[in-house]
């Protein structure tokens, strides 16, 4: 990645982070809402090579760790997002990708989002994070998945265009 690409991508990431922290966080959405940063990072990761996807996941996770409402130790989100982005790119990038088509991509992002939450939930207690009651965990897991399913098809074309205009290799636009 050239310096220009890194600079522009960083600015885009910061913009999305600001949208998440200042706009979306204003609404107490039922079922836990959604994270536009996770959707964005996964969308870009699925359109990128593994190497780039790993950097995307790392950067998104770092920003999520910087969020004041992040409850785990610094680095937990970084690690989870890095693994998720690399994994989704491994399965989704290229002509022989695992998902095939826009619907497959949307569903894979929803599934990845669910697995990310689950991974946070599993790794949380190991790192000293308290988790809530079973009912609350179930509600959040289900709620965030439904919200992601609802938001991803709306946001994906925009993220794909953004990716294409920066990297010139968009696969979903």
């Amino acid at each position: 990645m050239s310096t220009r690409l890194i600079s522009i991508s960083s600015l885009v990431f910061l913009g999305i982070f600001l949208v998440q922290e200042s706009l979306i966080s204003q609404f107490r959405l039922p079922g836990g809402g959604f994270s536009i940063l996770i959707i964005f990072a996964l969308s870009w990761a699925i359109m990128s090579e593994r190497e780039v996807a790993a950097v995307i996941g790392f950067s998104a996770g770092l920003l999520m760790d910087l969020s004041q409402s992040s409850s785990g130790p610094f680095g937990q989100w970084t690690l989870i997002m890095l693994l998720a982005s690399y994994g989704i790119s491994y399965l989704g990038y290229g002509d022989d990708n695992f998902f095939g088509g826009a619907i497959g991509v949307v569903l894979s992002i929803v599934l990845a989002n669910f697995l990310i939450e689950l991974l946070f939930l599993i790794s949380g207690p190991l790192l000293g994070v308290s988790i809530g009651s079973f009912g609350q965990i179930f509600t959040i897991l289900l709620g965030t998945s439904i919200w992601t399913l609802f938001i991803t098809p709306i946001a994906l074309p925009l993220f794909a265009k953004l990716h294409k205009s920066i990297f010139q290799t968009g696969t979903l636009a």
Partner: protein
Amino acid sequence: MSKGGQSRTRLLLVILIVTSLFLVTLDLRGVQLLDNLKQGTQNVVSPFQRIANSVLSPIKGFFSDASLLGRSGSQIEKLERENASLKSELLERADADVQLQQLKGILDLAGTAGYKIVNAKVISQGSYQSFAQTVTIGSGSNAGIAQNMTVLSEYGIAGIVKEVYPNSALIQLASDPAFRIGVRIVNSQQIGFLSGRGERSAVLQLLDNSTDINEGDVLMSRGSIANRPFVPGVPVGYITTVDNSAGTIAQSATVRYYTDFSKLSVLAVVVGGPKSDPGDALVPRKPQPIPTPTVTVFVTPTPTPNN
């Protein structure tokens, strides 16, 4: 991908994983640098949150209403525009009324107990992605707020100050799974501790197993040394179910908080505790049943004229 490319990707992945684990280790060891990074980020983000809060505040509940506006026709559109504008004004007014009501409740509560408080608006809700329950308020260390101070809502305990920044503060809500508070039951004076569960209900565990607890018993905060993190005598909640299962070491119960965490718009941080323990002065009154007026109608039959 070529062999060289593959090994480069693997190397990068390993480096990034090691860096992540390094960050986790640093944080768990309490390295100050990471705290400063978070504080710097919050200083940048909080002005945006404040702006977004003031812009979006009247329209937070407006989306459902706005979705109904979609018909065509100039007259209808004009009327709809007027209607939307009036609705927006009404919502702004309703929003201000709610905030005023909450503020009045908080001032009543704090005034009765003699707490010195700093009021602040909620400028952002915490993310649920980390399974945490937090909000951000628009006042910080510049207003005298410090870490581990009690935060009140109009009905009682709302949480504690977890992180403080110059112009904002992060509040850990009482519903957060990591939240713990020492409580006493008003009538029996039994003591125990309450743990958040990520929702409006919490789990109470008593220290003594011999006394009975009953549904509806009111819980108050016990207070901490130097009133931090908890000032004494704050209403916490009431018992909804008692767990009487045999073989448990400590008696436990489910408690419902007085505070509705989904409707917080104004909070108060207790910056100065009471000179003396307010005791049970803040115990909420039980709602009195409103008597239904019975209307008795007496009908006097009109005397039938005799023919």
